[in-house]
């Protein structure tokens, strides 16, 4: 991990700790009755009841933006706001136009049909998390004052539960098999005491100098965050291969997590003194691997997870060892190796034709210097 990444990691850990303390304080100071005991209706892969209707929700969302401009600016550039318009999502939806997808990508509309444009534009909006009935909710209660609304406290907004309904769910047709498993991965990690918000909504300074929780929810657009997720080192294993050992670092879940198509690519090439590439290893991909089982009785097909070679969450497993076979004697050669994060495989990216899909982020790389003899 680079020094910047380490710094970033330390910063994230600090924010995470502050987040945990704030959540604890909120839980201790505000009784569960602050919200009248009603369950907060968070977005999820199901139609979300909004008795006041979409138009009212859109109007309220605009009001939020009008006063909370710093936060609105962050949210405007986020994948939450772009949940519907994200071109990769649109390509995927064209293949599988399921109500199940619409529940989280346009939560302000009825998921059973194409959402109205207003709901598409709001995406996962301010109101999605902060408007419950006619109450504005937050992690802490704030009394109404002139020109400003009151905030009703629901401490759950500061917990992992607030994210779970859209970031932990099963395949609709394969009960028991998670399509996204981030929350469970998080629960098994040494970061389990830190809510998602601890890392993904860090405290930032607003223009007014007041700190607030960032609402840009950046992950893939934040290369430093991706780079802080893992550390790796590589050693020769024999004369023709290297072993890359990858450990979880700053991510509080498996790496990569989220969508089932995300993966890591580990690659290596042997280079001579002039920089000429002499050999390339076949790349190794670390990902969840799925297949389909066909039931002989009726030909029904079900998704199964065949393997999960991702980096386990911190504290949930040892380092992942990856062996790359170069096919030539590399003792007199340098070996360059790279660990890269990819949103999806090349064939899928090509099929989607979306530049964003083809992006990759180099997480860590290194060079193994030539040797005369291998250490025993």
């Amino acid at each position, binding site marked *: 991990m680079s020094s910047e990444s380490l710094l970033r990691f330390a910063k994230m850990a600090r924010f995470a700790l502050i987040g945990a303390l704030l959540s604890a304080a909120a839980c201790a100071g505000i009784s569960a009755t602050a919200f009248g005991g009603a369950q907060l209706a968070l977005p999820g892969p199901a139609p979300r009841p909004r008795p006041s209707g979409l138009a009212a929700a859109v109007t309220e969302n605009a009001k939020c933006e009008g006063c909370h401009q710093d936060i609105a600016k962050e949210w405007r550039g986020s994948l939450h706001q772009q949940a519907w318009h994200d071109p990769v999502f649109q390509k995927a939806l064209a*293949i599988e136009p399921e109500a199940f997808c619409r529940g989280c990508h346009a939560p302000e509309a009825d998921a059973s049909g194409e959402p109205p444009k207003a709901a598409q534009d709001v995406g996962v909006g301010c109101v999605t998390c902060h408007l419950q009935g006619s109450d504005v909710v937050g992690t802490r209660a704030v009394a109404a004052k002139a020109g400003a609304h009151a905030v009703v406290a629901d401490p759950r907004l500061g917990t992992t539960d607030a994210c779970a309904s859209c970031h932990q769910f099963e395949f609709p047709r394969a009960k028991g098999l998670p399509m996204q498993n981030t929350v469970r991965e998080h629960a098994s990690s040494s970061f389990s005491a830190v809510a998602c918000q601890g890392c993904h909504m860090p405290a930032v300074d607003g223009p007014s100098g007041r700190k607030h929780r960032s609402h840009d929810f950046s992950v893939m657009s934040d290369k430093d965050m991706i780079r802080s997720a893992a550390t790796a080192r590589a050693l020769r294993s024999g004369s023709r291969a290297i072993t890359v050992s990858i450990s979880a670092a700053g991510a509080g879940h498996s790496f990569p997590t989220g969508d089932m198509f995300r993966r890591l690519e580990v690659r290596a090439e042997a280079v001579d003194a002039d920089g000429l590439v002499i050999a390339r290893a*076949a790349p190794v991909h670390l990902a969840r691997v799925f297949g389909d089982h066909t*039931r002989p009785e*009726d030909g029904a*097909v079900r998704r199964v997870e*065949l393997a999960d070679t991702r980096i386990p969450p911190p504290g949930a497993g040892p380092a992942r060892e990856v062996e790359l*076979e170069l096919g030539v004697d590399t003792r007199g050669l340098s070996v360059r190796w790279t660990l890269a994060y990819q949103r999806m495989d090349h064939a899928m990216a090509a099929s989607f034709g979306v530049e964003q899909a083809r992006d990759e982020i180099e997480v860590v790389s290194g060079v193994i210097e030539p040797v005369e003899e291998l250490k025993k």
Partner: protein
Amino acid sequence: MMRSTSVIFSVVLGGLLVALSAAADVKAPIAGKAPPAEVEKPKQKQAAKTEPAPEGEIRPFDISGLGPIDPATDKAIGALDTTCRSSEFRREGPSQAEVAKCNVAIAKVATSGKKGASAIFASLNTLRHQKMRSFSRSRTFSLLGKLEDETVRDVLVTGLAKIASEKASAYVGDARLIDQTLREMAGSGPLTAIPWEEKTVRDSWQSVAASAEAWRAFQKANAGKKRAEIVKEALALARADRKSDDAKKAYRAVEVLIQRAPKEALAAARQYQKRSDLPDAVRGAFASLESRCEWAAEAKSKA
């Protein structure tokens, strides 16, 4: 169930027809007399003939030891290839409508029984399935899974080894399908990977080569055995291991039971999770097996 019955019936009927037509080809000589000159000699098993592979193209499956390509099966597979279409980028896998449509095409090919094997392999030897390969290829392989034929198993194992040795990128996705097909055919197979077991991740070619080697050893160990015999042995071992303190043994036992005795597998998977000393990863793996058992048992219940 109606469909599965008709598929099984078709396979059985197809097999019977093949046997009957083969018997009809052999005319018995009249006792004490030389056979008439015009009497046909018993037909030799013809080797399947296919166009040679274009330069640089690899054909993993050697079908020279199988019978000739059956034109009707070949035609039915062509239809299957165009019918069984589903984007490989669907998160859920093929939709229920796509599966139902494909099942109709599958049933037509299944009527060929063993005599269809050459045509099935010939189609898998070409890349005409490239466009939508994951679904149509997997369903084409599944047809072989219903056959009980050691020669067909050998063709698959040799094909797997060839994919690895030739580093045939276009066929690398077949490795998993071949393994699945061989398990279906043999009713058992080499030891499967344990989800919670940490091991070094290697490139696809090394994994495919290891799989081919494991299947070669399995074939050797079970040479001459009928599927029923292999299944009987595997089930006996699974029943003995399903409560083993060694979680790996128990996990593999449940995996074997899913195929033939899903309700038994379901009970075993549930029971095992009740153990108080299981690490989360192990419990999670058994929970995942449980949902597979439920799904498998659901069809048996309907039946």
